[in-house]
């Protein structure tokens, strides 16, 4: 099971690709779909690889994505 997860606020994204490029485990890719402003937001393509490191959250200039570590004892 993945150790972490991300939340993406699609409508805030401007499609810069920072999160996709610098995710250490390549969890993300830009989606072919457009958001309302015409940008391609990221989507998760390898959820099992997410460590929850939140590097995507540190990089995102638009505050549109962040990651967190899942608690171990989450039943």
């Amino acid at each position: 099971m993945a150790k972490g997860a991300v939340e993406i606020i699609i409508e805030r994204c401007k499609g810069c690709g920072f999160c996709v490029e610098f995710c250490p485990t390549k969890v993300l890719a830009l989606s072919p779909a457009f958001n309302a402003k015409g940008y391609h937001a990221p989507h998760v393509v390898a959820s099992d690889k997410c460590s929850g490191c939140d590097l995507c959250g540190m990089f995102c200039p638009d505050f549109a994505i962040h990651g967190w570590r899942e608690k171990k004892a989450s039943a």
Partner: protein
Amino acid sequence: MSTELIHPENPVEQFLRSDRIPHIWCPGCGIGTTVNCFTRALIDSKANLDKLAIVSGIGCTGRVAGYLDLDSFHTTHGRAIPFATGLKLANPDLSVVVYSGDGDLFAIGGNHFIHAARRNVDIKVVCVNNLVYAMTGGQTGPTTPGSVVTATNPYGTFEPSFNLPQLAEAAGAVYVARWTTFHVRQLARSMYEMFQKKGFSFIEVLSPCPTLYQRRNKMGDGLDTMKSYKEKSKKRDGAPTSEVPLTRDGEIVVGKFVDRERPDYLTLMKAQFQASLGERYQEPEMHSGCEFEQSEIDGGTICQ
């Protein structure tokens, strides 16, 4: 009801004036990335937000203060440092941060920068350096390296540029570091260290302006710039600041260059007054926040 798991909020969110988001910064602009780092440093240093003020000048970077839900001051162009100095002297308990652009801090505001550093006023200065005056259309500024095409140098720049860490050190800053927006963890760490420091502290952050700098110079977009930061940066903590000038395509030396102690402005002032006035010197009473006494004057109220 949603069946979604409850998860932690983005750490930046609690610091944003959410009614102002989305912000105006272009796709691939690095300013927002520096804001993430700044908020992580606020969290890590357990900063008392009631005792913290953030002051910006004018420019794309100057917008930072307005997007943060802190005691924020969006001042006039070039005058963030004098404004911050006044805040600090009137209320020494405050932690005062100046967050502004390279043009604001080193062109119109350059004079204020060197004198605040010389006096060692206890303020923390973050300069987002995108190498141009971005907000007004990408004109050449004092940090623009040579052989770069700008709005005002269509045939390329030729005047020498400032090496900001060297300038800051020579003028007297006690803490000097440089990172790029690629170095998110290191930048957050430096900002945290800056909060622990007493005295004039300076962090330069190299940041993409794809719209007005990179595009004009065929350097690609924000992501291309981030990749080039990754490729060209060399970490050299303690490097002599004379050895870290920036050029158009050359190596980018990053790291912490200066971390020293000097008595700050208020300490020097007190020492001098005590030496010359002896017993007659009385510490001024410092007010803080809303503890001010209100008194009525001409029908209005003022703090005194």
